[in-house]
């Protein structure tokens, strides 16, 4: 049996335990892993601290009042050079962000969810083999490409439809961001749907249900928490999207509900401020961090909300 292969001496002596060196090296590896994990936490904390410190320079300026920041409807940090006359009211930027995000979600949520249901419940293996990689390709397209796609294709298309659209407008940016978020919604929602156990589907079939009954009345409600958190994640992704809006949404902060107008978003403003000639140290420059903090608070709340919903609607199956 043995054919001359030497048996390790440890086995021969029946010492079925890791050697001392193996234990030591494992301890080192575990320490490294933990350092990595703690490093991510430390990074997040540092980023938040930096954000708070820099935005403090903004909020503590005598030219800025918190009331004006939270309720003001004019944002002129880039347009007006006299600090005394600059108005820092977040609503034009916030409404710009919400317009773009809203339009994006109008596209990404239904389309992503429908695609996910189709992929997980109806598609044959062959169809799935084609559809899933093409969705991944869509996810791999750089956002700057979507930005130019919006400016050069979607915008002229909208203007052909109705000349009242501006060249840079919330709708074209929103559509592009929506397409961008589509694979995110679809893929996460599909994960949630296919995690629903087959036994549930079989139970519906045995009761005479159709595939549509199964998908809409049983699988979707069972996977609701996963589906909703996919949607919220896409919402946060759209809120923070920068490149598309910097290229396609325009550079004018407008407080309006009109999706045909220019709509500088919070991230778009940050990009323009970095490009402008205003120096580090000016209140206008620090306003960038005020906006970033507001954006952070919003996405943070969205994440918390996602957690809550996931816990509330979670259904556990063995």
């Amino acid at each position, binding site marked *: 049996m043995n054919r001359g292969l030497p048996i390790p001496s440890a086995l021969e002596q029946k010492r079925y335990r890791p050697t001392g060196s193996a234990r030591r090296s494992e301890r080192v590896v575990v320490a490294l892993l933990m350092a990595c994990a703690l490093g991510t936490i430390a990074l997040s904390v540092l980023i938040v601290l930096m954000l708070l410190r820099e935005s403090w320079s903004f909020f503590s300026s005598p030219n800025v009042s918190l009331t004006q920041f939270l309720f003001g409807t004019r944002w002129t940090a*880039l*347009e007006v050079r006299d600090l005394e006359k600059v108005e820092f009211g977040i609503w034009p930027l916030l409404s710009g962000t919400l317009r773009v995000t809203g339009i994006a979600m109008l596209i990404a949520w239904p389309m992503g969810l429908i695609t996910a249901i189709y992929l997980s419940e109806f598609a044959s293996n062959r169809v799935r083999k084609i559809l899933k990689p093409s969705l991944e390709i869509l996810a791999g397209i750089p956002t700057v490409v979507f930005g130019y796609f919006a400016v050069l294709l979607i915008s002229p298309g909208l203007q052909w439809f109705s000349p009242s659209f501006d060249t840079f407008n919330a709708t074209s940016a929103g559509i592009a961001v929506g397409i961008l978020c589509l694979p995110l919604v679809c893929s996460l929602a599909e994960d949630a749907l296919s995690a629903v156990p087959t036994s549930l589907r079989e139970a519906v079939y045995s009761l005479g249900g159709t595939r549509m009954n199964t998908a809409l009345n049983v699988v979707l409600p069972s996977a609701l928490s996963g589906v909703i958190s996919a949607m919220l994640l896409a919402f946060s992704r759209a809120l923070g999207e920068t490149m598309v809006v910097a290229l396609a949404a325009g550079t004018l902060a407008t407080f309006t509900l009109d999706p045909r107008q220019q709509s500088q978003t919070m991230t778009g403003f940050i990009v323009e401020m970095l490009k402008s000639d205003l120096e580090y140290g000016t209140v206008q420059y620090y306003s960038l961090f005020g906006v970033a903090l507001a954006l952070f608070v919003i996405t943070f709340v969205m994440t918390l909300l996602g957690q809550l919903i996931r816990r509330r609607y979670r259904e556990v199956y063995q």
Partner: protein
Amino acid sequence: MAFSGGCIRFSAQFRYFPIMGVLCFFTLVGCGGQPSAETKKGNGAADKAPVPALRGNIQVDGSSTVRPIGEAVAKRYAEVQSQVQVDVGGRGTGNGFKRLIAKEIDFSQASRPVTPNEAKLLKEAGVEFLEVPVAYDGLTIVVHSANDWVKELTVEQLKKIYAEDATAQNWSDIDPSWPNEPMKLFAPGTGSGTYDYFCEVIGGKLRTGISLNEDDNALVTGVSGNQYSIGFFGVAYFEENRSKLRAIPIVNPKTGVAVLPEREAIEKNDYSPFSRPLFVYVNRQSLDRAEVRSFLKYYIESAPELVQNVGYVKLPSDVWTKVNEIVANPQANLGSRFLNANGEKKEGSFLELFLGQSDAAKSEAPAGAATGQEGQ
């Protein structure tokens, strides 16, 4: 600077997101497109003589208006000195001076003369500089090509459109015979020398509600995308996009005649008050490097031809003589000719100030170019 924006969390399927983030960062860095500077294989003087091979890296930044000139020169210079890498940026005149002050760049291109404040900061940073005018530009006011109602504009009307205290919203507020549609205003960003120059002409600041963009190509896209738009930038960007835009003749306040920004009109300053000189500011210390000296020399030799290729107008010969004098003897010609000994702005036209009072009489005169009023 995480431009990747929303990479909040990625699952296995979204492993591309970090890559996308990196990609879009790099693309953002390089996304200021530029009008392709048309350069034909040339016969610049420097082509003929065999030149010693130089190596090095030259940094050029500043005005996006002057950028096409810098690019055209750099492109042709690469044929002479292939080992010298010349990077030409277009972050805006103000940002260019800032980088010159920080000693990050060798050449700062500018669409207005250096301001007293910038000169002070340069001095404090210990940066000595040469001031070299390279071309005339006609700051061009453009509208959509389908705009058939605006035949000409006066400076007064431009004030009604753009000035800080302007209340006009619709085209009909400027002239009752024009359409009752809202004007879509575009302008270069506040860091731009073109913005400053325009402010100087209309004698004040610009109103709010204008789409400001540091990228002239974005302005072209904006104005050409809506029939009711109006905007302005250097004439080279108009020449590049003639099919999509229409330049508005501007009424010369002295003669009362409406003039288009065409070569001859800009050169003779009939296109007033929007004819203006464009500059290159050179860090004197950089001239200690052979490749910078060689590039500056090449710039001066090829500029008269290349500025015309990209759409600008060459400077009159007496200015050019002076430019050659400055470049030949940098040490004796440091500083700006538009600021007095105390670092304050001098009053007078570009030619008067640049050539010195006595010489100015000889040349028929783009006046108004660098006139004083309160600059930014």
